[in-house]
């Protein structure tokens, strides 16, 4: 029974991925601008441009090109980057690696932050602290990411020079170098994600804290703190997992703004630059990867929810 459910979810995810590949391919084809001019530069000779167009099979029907690309994807061949003629995997790997590390750091800050603040709010619910923190999170949720990034940059680099202005990382950066480079962007990302996570977790926690079995535990004499942590929190975490999955998708593709402000060489900027440069294979590869990560993390969240929550197992 549960295996069928899991299988069903996996198939859905696969279909979604295929739909994504079609959409991405179609949208990229719709981009105006002569690809050959964009890649080779406006001074390139007509013969060079024609050669590139032939190389990209631009005169073949779109459906044929799509299938060719899809086949390449499935065999792990992402093709070559148009401007530097390097295999795309080589170009993507460092950027993706950097972004994954940044995401990890952001999540590492996000989880304790969300848990502690929401926990405090639920514990002192409807009191002064709760309202105060709610207002803070509300304001935090209302500041666009780029504004928050700039404010943090100025605050911790100019006003209080404790952190580096630029978050450059490459294979030569030391561990300490990584930490200092990641500090600001990870904190900003963590805050941006947590303002939503906190509100949601707080709501769930309060709901659970008012439920019967919690009341019973309290009546039995367990301390409110223990009840909160050992009994309420695990139950409230499930919807939060879902939100965390959404956040992962955001982290991979949506952090372009943070990357640009802090000059972090990440996946988001690579994706956006690829679109600006009409580097068609790179655009298609990066967007597919970002979308695939999002779909995969959603799938994992879904599956975890099914496994952890007996009630959900009956729904299909």
């Amino acid at each position, binding site marked *: 029974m549960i295996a069928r459910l899991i299988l069903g979810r996996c198939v859905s995810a696969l279909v*979604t991925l295929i739909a994504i590949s079609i*959409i991405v391919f179609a949208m990229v084809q719709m981009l105006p601008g002569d690809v050959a001019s964009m890649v080779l530069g406006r001074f390139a000779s007509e013969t060079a441009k024609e050669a590139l167009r032939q190389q990209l099979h631009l005169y073949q029907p779109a459906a044929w090109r799509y299938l060719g690309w899809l086949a390449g994807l499935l065999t792990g061949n992402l093709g070559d980057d148009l401007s530097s003629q390097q295999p795309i995997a080589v170009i993507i790997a460092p950027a993706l690696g950097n972004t994954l590390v940044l995401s990890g750091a952001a999540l590492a800050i996000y989880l304790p932050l969300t848990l502690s603040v929401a926990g405090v709010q639920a514990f002192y619910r409807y009191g002064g602290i709760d309202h105060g923190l709610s207002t803070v999170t*509300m304001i935090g949720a209302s500041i666009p990411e780029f504004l928050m990034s700039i404010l943090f940059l100025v605050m911790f680099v100019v006003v209080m020079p404790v952190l580096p202005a630029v978050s450059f990382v490459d294979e030569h950066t030391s561990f300490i170098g990584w930490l200092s480079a990641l500090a600001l962007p990870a904190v900003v990302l963590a805050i941006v994600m947590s303002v939503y996570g906190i509100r949601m977790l707080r*709501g769930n926690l309060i709901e659970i804290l008012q439920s019967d079995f919690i009341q019973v535990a309290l009546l039995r004499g367990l301390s409110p703190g223990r009840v909160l942590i050992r009994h309420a929190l695990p139950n409230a975490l499930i919807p939060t997992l879902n939100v965390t999955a959404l956040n992962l998708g955001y982290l991979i593709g949506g952090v372009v703004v943070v990357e640009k402000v802090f000059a972090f060489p990440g996946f988001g900027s690579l994706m956006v630059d690829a679109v600006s440069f009409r580097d068609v294979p790179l655009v298609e590869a990066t967007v597919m990867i970002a979308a695939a990560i999002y779909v995969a993390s*959603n799938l994992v969240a879904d599956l975890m929810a099914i496994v952890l929550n007996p009630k959900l197992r009956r729904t299909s």
Partner: protein
Amino acid sequence: MARRTRTARLALLWHRTGWSLRIGALILLVHLLVAVFGPWLASYDPNEMGSGIPLSGASWAHPFGVDQLSRDIFSRVLNGSHIVIILSLSGTFVGLTVGAAIGLFSAYMGGWVDELIQRTVEAFVSIPFIVLGLLAVYAAGPESAGKPALMVLVIALLYAPRVARMARSAGLDIITHDYVLAARLRGERVWSVIWFELAPNVISTLIVEFAVRTAYAPALVATFGFLGFGIQPPTPEWGSIISENRGIFLLSPVAVLGPGACLASLIVAVNMVTEGVSRLIGQRVEIASR
């Protein structure tokens, strides 16, 4: 049971509102007044150059300072207020209508149609929204770039799939109800059912969804402006103003903090009102952005 007089009912309503709703509503009111009367209140024309020394900071004559082209920033903000509000409202409205239609349709049809639509919607949601927005802006061509109409469509494109998901799950909740079954048996056409039976019963969810999305829309437009493919200058859209002036932040912080505070306060106000109102009508709301 005694009949409640109108004043008594209003008084009861007032008591049930929290402080956050009252403050939020107040701030929103100020924003709406500024949107309507802003252009008259401004001391300078928003595009007038030579109104002051470039890059000077805050002063009585120029509360937000003067930008690089020696335009008064405060006047620009006042003139841009209605742009932000109209863009956000229309973009979200279009996105909501389209998304709700798709979501309810999918819920009602069920079966493989539902599956297909769901997968497509999921696909759109999975593509990072900045990339999707960027592709849409570029696909529209260099002539349309930066036009408000395009921004409305881009917001709608980004929101519609997310709204569709929400509408579908809300719709699924009610299609099992008797009145829907009755309508189907009566032989009512699909769109008739959606419009007359389904929509009215999910309206409170949709309204809350509308409010939540509208709150984030200004930030979305501002983010696109920041990345360079938003509303074209010299239109004083707040995000563009912040973006234009961020290079001179260190020289004149108010140039960014002023419009930034206005933008944030608008979003906060809408969020507060949304939360307060939804608590009143008994809806659970999550301030979600993506």
